[in-house]
């Protein structure tokens, strides 16, 4: 009973998350490329539930104007004399919902000149919360795509290799080693340089991640092959074979289920790995290009020492990833529990 409830809750959470990322345009108050040159590296805006006179506004909280401290770059103070209420269902910058419907309706916002930065701003004065939501689109897509490719090819080749054995096993495993050893980085450089200059940066990145995912089949394949190797010698499998079960039947009914645990574990490990692979890629100049946001390039900016030291809110996107990955992990655990 408990497990079923737990799983339902998880599924709902993940569903909501994906919905939020999907509907990033609606939930985000600002456009991802909108630069506010007066407010770079601004801390998260404080939301007040009571105004200067002491009146409580529960349903319509207030946000006050932020101004730069002229003495020091990047330090701000709040001007509590000028406060503006937060409105819901406002008209803001244009965007395309689901990439198709053009609209300008946003869940919440404030009237200019006030700004509502829930997670603060980055070096250009762009709202980090909006960028976080939009960034999820490409990052989650990339992570899932690459994981699917890696696992898909890995399962195929791993089971073939383990089940058939003999020369096929040797060939596949040796190719796997070659694939692991090769410096794919150069291929990525070549691929990226080969793409036309005016390609959408997100598409370029998805292509690169697809390549990384496709060539990353070797490790899952090997793990699966190991399990299949021992799995096909189990007594019930041998028995089924004696009863005339074909290779495909044996695989589907008896052997593959033994690999579910490994596959789920791998999936749970690979998704965050590929999402975060972008941090490394941007280190080398292959990440998602400006001004498109992604979780990877938002995290990459925290690597700079002065950011780490002075602007704590830049870590918020990173910290927000933990519940996302946690839910994937818990889901995998739940699935695993159900399968066994």
């Amino acid at each position, binding site marked *: 009973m408990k497990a079923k409830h737990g799983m339902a809750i998880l599924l709902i959470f993940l569903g909501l998350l994906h919905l939020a990322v999907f509907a990033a345009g609606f939930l985000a108050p600002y456009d991802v490329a909108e630069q506010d040159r007066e407010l770079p590296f601004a801390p998260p805006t404080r939301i007040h539930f009571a105004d200067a006179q002491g009146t409580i506004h529960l349903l319509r909280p207030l946000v006050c104007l932020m101004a730069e401290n002229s003495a020091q770059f990047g330090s701000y103070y709040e001007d509590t004399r000028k406060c503006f209420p937060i409105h819901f269902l406002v008209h803001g910058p244009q965007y395309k919902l689901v990439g198709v419907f053009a609209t300008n309706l946003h869940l919440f916002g404030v009237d200019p000149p006030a700004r509502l930065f829930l997670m603060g701003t980055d070096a250009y004065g762009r709202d980090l919360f909006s960028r976080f939501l939009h960034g999820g689109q490409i990052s989650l897509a990339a992570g899932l795509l690459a994981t699917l490719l890696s696992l898909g090819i890995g399962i195929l080749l791993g089971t073939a290799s383990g089940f058939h*054995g*003999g*020369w096929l*096993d*040797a060939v596949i*495993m*040796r190719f796997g*080693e*070659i694939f*692991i*050893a*090769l*410096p*794919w*980085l*150069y*291929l990525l*450089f*070549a691929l990226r*340089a080969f793409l036309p200059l005016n390609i959408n940066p997100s598409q370029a990145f998805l292509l690169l991640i697809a390549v990384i995912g496709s060539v990353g089949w070797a*490790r899952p394949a*090997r*793990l699966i092959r*190991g*399990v299949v*190797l*021992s799995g096909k*010698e*189990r007594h019930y499998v041998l028995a089924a074979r004696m009863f005339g079960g074909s290779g495909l039947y044996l695989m589907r009914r008896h052997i593959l289920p033994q690999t579910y*645990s*490994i596959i*789920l*574990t791998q999936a*749970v*490990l690979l998704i*965050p*790995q590929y999402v*975060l692979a972008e*941090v*490394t890629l941007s*280190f*080398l100049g292959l990440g998602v290009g400006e001004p498109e946001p992604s979780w990877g390039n938002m*995290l*990459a900016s*925290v*690597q700079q*020492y002065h950011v*780490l*030291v002075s602007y704590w809110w830049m870590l918020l996107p*990173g910290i927000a*990833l*933990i519940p*996302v*990955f*946690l839910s994937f*992990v818990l889901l995998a*655990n739940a699935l*695993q529990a159900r399968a*066994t």
Partner: protein
Amino acid sequence: MRYLGLRLLQSMFVLLGVSLLSFVFVELAPGNFFDEMRLNPRISSSTVTNLRKQYGMDRPLPVRYFRWVESAANGELGFSFAYNAPVAPLLWARARNTLLLTGSATVLAWLIALPLGILSAARQRGWIAQACELFTTALLATPDLLLALGLLFMAVHFHWLHTGGMFSRESAGQSLWGLSKDLAAHMILPVTVLVLGSLPLLLKHTRAAMLEVLDSPYVRASRALGISRGRILFRHALPAAINPLVSLFGFSLGSLLSASLLTEVVMSWPGLGPLLLEAVLDRDIYVVIGAVLFSTLLLVFGTLLADVLLFAADPRIRTEDLA
């Protein structure tokens, strides 16, 4: 024995394939080492072209490949444009440092992951399991680079940790014990980052494998028969669960040279990482290909060991003779 011989032959094939394909990949990537000189207004383009010719970079790919194979047979593994020196000694001096780091980190990671994984599988509801779960997820969600920087940042503020390098200047000429202490002090941070980076994988797999085995009928039967938990865990469950772990171990071994690349760069550890990163970005191609080959050697050895161990550990596989 026939199996080993065959595997060695296949490994040669792998090495050859990797070297050839690496050459092709490197050729595909745009730009070459000498391009950066073009940004210097004081150097003329004819000097750049002549330097390219001097290093044989204007010859066709097959010619260059064969000259490189020749050089590899001589033990030089090609020539570095940047250092004007043969590649092999350059790499070996750094590879030693990397192996020291990753070797220690791997041993430590396995020493921590195995018991913790087994424990968290044995007591699923216990606090150890929950703590491990949270811990691994938090680690999974944090990129290695961020971890490394965070630790560096702490090191700066708490002056008891070194922020880079392998030996302090002051420790030159000290006794072996003094040098070892100095080395260990410098290794704390990078090893921590590496261990934290590889723990989630190991913990997860250990736990998953153990869980699966602990749920199987014969283990339940053993428990019903009254055999003690400890005996079940270590005599019956662990050997059966060892299958994926052996493969993982082979991989750990195989990636000893490549796993720590970025950690070394961020933590200024004088291993292959910083050398390789610069070589990749500068297109010092023979250094890169040489390093790839070193890594491949280790990888091939690692997987061979893993396969041998797999046969030794899992009697169910031994029944069929694999070529």
